[in-house]
């Protein structure tokens, strides 16, 4: 065991499981005190705490599920199910429950310490106890949606450790292999495995027309592994790689083509090899029968040309039933007559290992990350020392001409050292990204979906620590992408997309940051649904959600507990994932944004800094205090001249805003954020005095100013000299640093702007961790400590109302556009365009229309020769144009008719038309024809159509005349109507 740990501890070994182990142990350490607190607080549990516990367990579960540690997964799943109930206030834990949880934590710890055998550790007792707690609530409240944990059964059948055939416990090699040689071998194979995996996926894609180069490469890699293993005496490893080699041989000789089932077998064999490599000294004890058997089955199947392709991939029948296993084992023995004592010549093996090794030996060395980190810190200190030195000797530069070149030299060298060390820590993002095609493949197979991942920009380099902390959030996102984003093939085809989903993962440089974009062409996220969930969970009121912009609503998905998934699966759905992702990305100084279009797909945009250790910052000053603002957040600097304040700064609702090139930016004073008393530098004396202005835009009223001016004049007369108004003094200029947090932009008013400086971030003590407005501290060139501002913290602290201001901004933009349009063409008017007979077009000014209705012709009633329709519980008299104007009538027998109800002073009437075509803005330049009949105001030509403008007043008049011409009326409606029409008409005439 020690040797394994030694290898695992070797920092050069970069392995998911090792990371997972370390992370989980760390998480377990943090979860224990949290659980205790939970016990202490009982009823009044703080949300933050429960969320933290939940996140931790969820991460463990996720990691375990992902790495295939079933036992670990199911126990953490059971824990999670309890915590989720606590979070939703459906369950209160007593001390005994906490005991159970802690026991489960201990069990997880045990599993972690022997991770590869974790599935064989019995945990029935813990699981049962956990289930009892989780189930308790279900008895009480039957409506709770929590599913009882069902996985347990299958785990009871897990084999005990003794089930591993004794055959494989080979003797350790006695002729002590050179430790270094083995280590090299391990490293080489890791590299080989890393290269084999993508090649394999490519093989699967190409299927029939496999390029010989590709298959040769895979074959060579396998052969090297086999050779190396044989040489070093790792029998199990050799056998497995030999079997794989055989399969590749078949493919190379075109006797076999790969299908997904076979690919599963090969990939799981690769995983097993990886596992063996990680614990190389005891690799012979790793059970690998299953894989070997599966491989041979693949081989056998094609070899004997049984071609029963319908048979499911053997990996799927994961029955660990003992008798079956033994059978399988025998089959394997039959099939492999030459496998065990395979005489791989030692010389060959050595050659092949050396072959694989030689290119890496010459130009790279492996260094522990710890060493690089230390070097990095020292370089940071060196930069600091240089800055201090430069300031200290500034005064002597003139005295001694020799100093300047020296200091310049030191300058350059220091910068270069720093750059190079930063470079040392840089690694291509491909290292992390390239594992995702495999993830996507496995997940899609599991969920019977189809998706392809396209990676771009794998060569973009990132700081190693950032890269590492990026791996987990990205895994989460990719998993979400496949689980929620990509639809099932049937669904995709129905939506007119190709059955194979596409997931793009792009990395690129932009503005000194690395951008990573994960995009899919799946179903997208319904922001309204996210809103509904948030309302359901009482996190926001409906009102708040309605007020939010689309992107703000989508952003809600990052809140803890929010998930759009309808059911909780192994992969996702608890609503923790995105919360963890956001937290992790923000911890490395990054930012995450989400965009989505329903039916089109989702795009997640992550911006991260190149490195964490040194950040270029702008130094600003407020009341003799200096603060550093990371350049990543600074968008621009604006100086509002003292005299122009009122032009550029105003107030909207409760917020001060800065008008900047047609945009409105909320602004805050840094001093207010800091809770400092505001002061200004008195222009006359240079003294500091308290500033009494309440807001940035505050200026004296004209009356006050006049009074002041008079007073000033009096003083001036006395003193007989002139003093400029303080408000015109340059000292009263307002400096605004425009900061960007995601898509939100806001301004921060500061007193002074200093230089840009590269600062080294120092961690903050826990006592000041709660000051969200600071991201950390740094030591300036003069040795003083300065705080680093956190832009998002400031925005949160100032409670900036971005949405309110954005709405106002949009409103103004509209007015502006309207104003522009108006200025260009003041004669424009909105009209409604319709026709009666298909080739005759009519128009009415939209402002004169009260309502539009659709009516079924059958529902029109005729009373005394006049048509009526029912409208608002009353009879609405209808006008047919052809009855009063010399126009063609509505043709045929239409299914529906449109009724235009014009604004009238009296009871409404309706104008029947056959179709409403459009509403358009149009020039009112209308020609009034000499021949125009009453009822037509004029005509115009638009897009080749002759359009008649109707005069609604005249039409009503005509209508009235027509009614009068009809048989004597006794209908009261008509009388009333007539009376009213009269008044309207008088007005029309008068007007």
């Amino acid at each position, binding site marked *: 065991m020690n040797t394994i740990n030694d290898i695992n501890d070797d920092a050069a070994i970069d392995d998911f499981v090792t990371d997972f182990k370390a992370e989980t142990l760390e998480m377990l350490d943090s979860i224990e005190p949290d659980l205790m*607190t939970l016990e202490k*607080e009982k009823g009044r549990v*703080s949300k933050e705490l429960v969320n933290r516990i939940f996140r931790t367990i969820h991460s463990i579960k996720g990691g375990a599920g992902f790495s295939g540690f079933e036992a670990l997964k199911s126990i953490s799943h059971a824990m999670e199910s309890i915590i989720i109930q606590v979070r939703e206030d459906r369950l209160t834990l007593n001390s005994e429950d906490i005991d159970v949880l802690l026991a489960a934590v201990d069990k997880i710890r045990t599993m972690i310490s022997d991770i590869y055998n974790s599935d064989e550790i019995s945990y029935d007792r813990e699981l049962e106890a956990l289930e009892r707690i989780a189930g308790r609530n279900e008895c009480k409240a039957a409506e709770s949606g929590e599913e009882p944990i069902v996985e347990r059964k299958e785990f009871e059948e897990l084999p005990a450790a003794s089930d591993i055939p004794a055959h494989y416990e080979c003797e350790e090699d006695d002729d002590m292999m050179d430790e270094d040689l083995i280590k090299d071998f391990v490293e080489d194979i890791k590299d080989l495995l890393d290269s084999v995996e993508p090649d394999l996926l490519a093989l699967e894609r190409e299927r029939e027309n496999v390029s010989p180069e590709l298959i040769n490469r895979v074959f060579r890699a396998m052969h090297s592994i086999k050779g190396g293993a044989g040489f070093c005496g790792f029998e199990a490893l050799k056998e497995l790689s030999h079997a794989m080699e055989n399969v590749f041989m078949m493919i190379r000789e075109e006797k076999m083509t790969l299908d997904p089932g076979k690919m599963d077998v090969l990939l799981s064999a690769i995983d097993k090899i990886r596992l063996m490599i990680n614990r190389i000294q005891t690799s012979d004890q790793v059970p690998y029968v299953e894989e070997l058997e599966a491989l041979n089955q693949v081989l056998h199947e094609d070899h004997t040309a049984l071609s029963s392709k319908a048979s499911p991939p053997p990996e799927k029948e994961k029955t660990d039933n003992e008798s079956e296993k033994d059978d399988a084992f025998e089959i394997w023995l039959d099939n492999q007559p030459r496998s065990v004592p395979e005489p791989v010549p030692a010389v060959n093996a050595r050659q092949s290992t050396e072959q694989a090794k030689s290119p890496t030996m010459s130009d790279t060395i492996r260094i522990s990350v710890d060493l690089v980190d230390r070097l990095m810190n020292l370089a940071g*200190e060196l930069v*600091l020392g240089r800055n201090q030195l430069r300031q200290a000797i500034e005064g002597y530069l003139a005295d001694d001409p020799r100093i300047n070149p020296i200091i310049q030299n030191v300058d350059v060298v220091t910068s270069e050292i720093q750059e190079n060390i930063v470079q040392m820590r840089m690694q291509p993002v491909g290292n992390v990204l390239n594992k995702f095609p495999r993830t996507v493949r496995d997940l899609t197979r599991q969920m019977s979906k189809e998706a392809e991942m396209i990676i771009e920009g794998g060569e973009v380099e990132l700081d190693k620590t950032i890269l590492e902390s990026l791996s987990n959030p990205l895994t989460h996102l990719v998993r979400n992408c496949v689980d929620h984003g990509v639809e099932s093939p049937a669904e995709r085809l129905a939506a007119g997309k190709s059955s194979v989903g596409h997931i793009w993962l792009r990395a690129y440089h932009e503005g000194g940051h690395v951008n990573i974009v994960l995009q899919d062409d799946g179903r997208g996220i319904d922001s309204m649904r996210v809103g509904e969930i948030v309302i359901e969970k009482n996190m926001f009121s409906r009102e708040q959600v309605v007020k939010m912009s689309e992107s703000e609503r989508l952003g809600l998905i990052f809140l803890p507990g929010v998930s759009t998934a309808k059911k909780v699966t192994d992969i996702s759905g608890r609503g923790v994932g995105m919360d963890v992702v956001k937290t992790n990305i923000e911890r490395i100084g990054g930012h995450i944004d989400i965009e989505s279009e329903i039916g089109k797909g989702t795009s997640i945009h992550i911006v991260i800094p190149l490195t964490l250790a040194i950040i270029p910052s702008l130094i600003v000053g407020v009341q003799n*205090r200096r603060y550093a603002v990371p350049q990543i957040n600074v968008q621009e600097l604006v100086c509002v001249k003292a005299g122009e304040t009122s032009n550029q700064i105003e107030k909207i609702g409760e917020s001060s805003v800065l008008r900047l090139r047609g945009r409105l930016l909320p602004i805050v004073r840094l001093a207010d*954020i*800091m*809770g*400092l008393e505001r002061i200004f530098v008195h222009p006359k004396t240079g003294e500091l005095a308290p500033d009494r202005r309440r807001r940035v835009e505050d200026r004296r009223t004209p009356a006050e100013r006049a009074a002041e001016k008079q007073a000033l004049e009096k003083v001036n007369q006395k003193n007989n000299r002139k003093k400029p108004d303080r408000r015109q003094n340059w000292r009263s200029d307002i400096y605004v640093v425009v900061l960007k947090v995601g898509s939100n932009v806001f301004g921060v008013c500061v007193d002074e702007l200093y230089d840009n400086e590269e600062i080294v971030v*120092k*961690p*903050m*003590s*826990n*006592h*000041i961790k*709660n*000051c969200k*407005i*600071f991201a950390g*501290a740094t*030591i300036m060139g003069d*040795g*003083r*400590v*300065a*705080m680093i501002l956190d832009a998002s913290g400031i925005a949160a*602290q100032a409670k900036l109302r971005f949405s309110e201001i954005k709405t106002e901004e949009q409103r103004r933009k509209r007015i502006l556009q309207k104003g522009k349009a108006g200025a260009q063409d003041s004669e424009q008017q909105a009209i409604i365009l319709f026709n009666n007979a298909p080739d005759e077009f009519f128009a009415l000014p939209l402002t004169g229309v009260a309502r539009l209705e659709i009516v079924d012709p059958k529902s029109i009633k005729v009373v005394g020769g006049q048509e009526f329709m029912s409208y608002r519980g009353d009879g609405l008299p209808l006008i047919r144009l052809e009855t009063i104007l010399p126009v063609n009538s509505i043709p045929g027998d239409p299914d529906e008719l449109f009724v235009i109800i014009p604004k009238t002073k009296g009871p409404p009437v309706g104008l029947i038309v056959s179709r409403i075509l459009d509403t358009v803005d149009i020039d009112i330049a209308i020609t009034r024809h000499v021949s125009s009949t009453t009822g037509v105001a004029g005509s115009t030509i638009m897009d080749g159509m002759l359009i008649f403008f109707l005069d609604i007043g005249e039409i009503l008049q005509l209508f009235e005349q027509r009614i009068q011409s009809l048989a004597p009326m006794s209908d009261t409606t008509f009388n009333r109507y007539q009376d009213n029409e009269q008044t309207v008409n008088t007005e029309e005439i008068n007007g």
Partner: protein
Amino acid sequence: MVKKQFVTFRIDEFFLGIDITMVREINRVLDITDVPQAPDYVLGLINLRGQTVTVFDLGVRLGMAPRFITDQTHNIIFKHETIGLLVDQIGDVVSVDEEKIVPPPANTGTIEAEFIEGVVELENELLMILAAWKILSIDDGIGE
């Protein structure tokens, strides 16, 4: 007999001590950068040879008035945490028999009792021994 050594200092009229094994150094770096919005007992940060140290106003921490910085003011820097305590005046290092340390009396004056680990009678004065862990602990507002 086990002897224990304490660094002694004064806050107002109180004579206090802290286990010397917990102390890294005592200095007069008083160029303190304040941290707005920090808890009231956090005075600010100092630069201690390239490391930032969070300085507490021990007076405030113990529930008394804020300190005035005088020419007697010193910082006591902890060994394992980057935290310093600003005190009015520094005294001698005293050796005390561990057995002579008794639990604090119920009435410790203006100092909150939980910060006192024990008291010991010296020749002419009562030395109160600070509970360093309590001073370093973070109250996140849950218990208080």
